[in-house]
């Protein structure tokens, strides 16, 4: 079916003998939001530049809705809206003038330009800034103009490189809502290093490290990985470890921070109830029992540094 919007195959980019991106492949379907994660210099922006045709890949190829970026760059680029790392703004123009230029360059037909500009402004909350010079806007508003520019021609694929950088919390919330909304009818690729953001807006996650994909899959897979089989236990009078290990399902006990104990158990078993019962009948003085969630950061660090370890 033609629901595949972005098809990257074996993308490789070599800079002076060093592979900045190597062998990155993925598919994206219509209506999906893909989050690109990775430490600084991992190759996120390079990958995005290759997808948008700003950089020629050393090997591999990109197809947008089945159109090859290298063979038919014009047709492929018409389907993409791109916000690079630093928003490409002509600072001497007003918001209206700039968006009009953007609409025309992206092939919006003369009669529809005005409507497209209005719609983009509305979606990005820029209506009141129409007549202001871009130069005089705050960083957050400039970022919004950048996003407006990327969605003005209603592209099939929207590619945003760190869209929420420099925005205040309310604006970030608005932009996230906008990205979710975009995900309904377009495909969205966004890069970020804010992990909760990925959890909130993305359906798919790819973690890229040193130019290689180290994780690629649904956001639920990542969430599962993070839940883990651990309990955090706070006891006023902790017993000997053997007593805890005797409870069914418990496989290990270790000391955690603040005098808490971390209890590992077998997958599929849930010893929490048994632990509470034992604590009550033996007078261990239970004051806290929690599932011990690895933060997304930990998962991220695990994934990106497992090679180094």
């Amino acid at each position, binding site marked *: 079916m033609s629901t595949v919007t972005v098809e990257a195959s074996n993308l490789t*980019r070599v*800079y002076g003998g060093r592979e900045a991106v190597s062998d990155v492949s993925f598919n994206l379907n219509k209506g999906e939001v893909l989050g690109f994660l990775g430490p600084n210099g991992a190759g996120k922006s*390079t990958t995005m*530049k290759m997808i*948008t*045709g*700003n*950089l*020629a890949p050393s090997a591999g190829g990109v197809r947008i809705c089945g159109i090859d970026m290298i063979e038919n*760059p*014009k*047709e492929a*680029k*018409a389907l*993409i809206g*791109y916000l*690079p790392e*630093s928003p*490409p*703004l*002509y*600072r*001497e*123009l007003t918001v209206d*003038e700039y968006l009009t*230029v*953007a609409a*025309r*360059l*992206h*092939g919006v037909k003369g009669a529809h330009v005005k409507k497209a500009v209005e719609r983009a402004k509305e979606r990005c909350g820029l209506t009141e800034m129409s007549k202001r010079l871009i130069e005089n806007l705050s960083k957050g508003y400039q970022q919004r103009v950048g996003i407006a*520019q990327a969605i003005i021609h209603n592209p099939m694929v929207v590619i945003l490189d760190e869209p929420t950088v420099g925005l205040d919390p309310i604006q970030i919330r608005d932009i996230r809502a906008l990205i979710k909304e975009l995900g309904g009818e377009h495909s969205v690729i966004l890069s970020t290093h804010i992990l909760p953001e990925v959890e909130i807006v993305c359906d798919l996650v790819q973690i890229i490290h040193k130019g290689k994909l180290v994780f690629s899959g649904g956001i639920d897979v990542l969430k599962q990985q993070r839940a883990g089989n651990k309990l955090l236990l706070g006891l006023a009078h902790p017993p000997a470890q053997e007593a805890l290990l005797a409870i069914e399902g418990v496989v290990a006990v270790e000391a955690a921070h603040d005098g808490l104990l971390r209890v590992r158990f077998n997958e599929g078993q849930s010893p929490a109830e048994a632990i509470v019962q034992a604590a009550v009948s033996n007078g261990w003085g239970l004051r806290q029992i929690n599932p011990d969630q690895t933060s997304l950061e930990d998962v991220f660090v695990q994934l990106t540094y497992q090679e180094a370890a």
Partner: protein
Amino acid sequence: MIFNIVRKELKSLFSSPMGWVVLALLQFVFGTFFLIGVDQYFQTMSGAMRPEQRIGITAFVGQNVFGIASFVMLFAVPLLSMRLISEERRQQTLTFLFSAPLSITEVVLGKFLGLVSFLSIVIVFIAAMISSMNLWTEVDFGYIFSNVLGLWLLVASFSALGIYVSSLTSQPVVAGIITFIALFALLILDHFLAGDPTSTMAYLSLMRHFEPFSRGLLDTKDFAYFILFIITFLTLTIRRLDADRLRG
């Protein structure tokens, strides 16, 4: 699509004081020289000059104005062309153009035509100014046409070189200075080599090819020179920008 880039370039020029100031100053300079030319014509021609030595007012005033125009453009064009690509590179707005459904050729041609159309405004004003003498006397329109065409080709060549230099750097000022020096060298090349008129180097001089136009002579040889000059530098610019995409 090229037209959209031309429009964008003109909008950029006129949305800052730059475009207006340049237009006003150029017009002031040319207007002054036009006035001086008309004034001097009567002084010179009413004097003790023999009739066979007298020249028409079009040639006399035209020489004055077009002579200074080719010289002033030497300063004006680098000022305007230096920002075309280097500024976009510095502000990282080139991505905006490259992500749009346009080929690099269209981007470069659009920028070139944008600048040339801006400069054409100046040239049209000059032509209108000199033609206005037609109200009182008979003007040699052939002479004006050949001069305007020559000046236009000269200015377009300046612009092509300016765009190429601008694509090499991300510092507009550096681009401006290099363009100015390169143009200056090309203009006075034949002065250095005046002793040897057959020298190939002297043949490359822009002034040497502009000079027949200013005498009212249209020569395909000079046409070809300017057209080749423009095509060469535009092609180099396209190749330079394409290298950005390939080498990153």
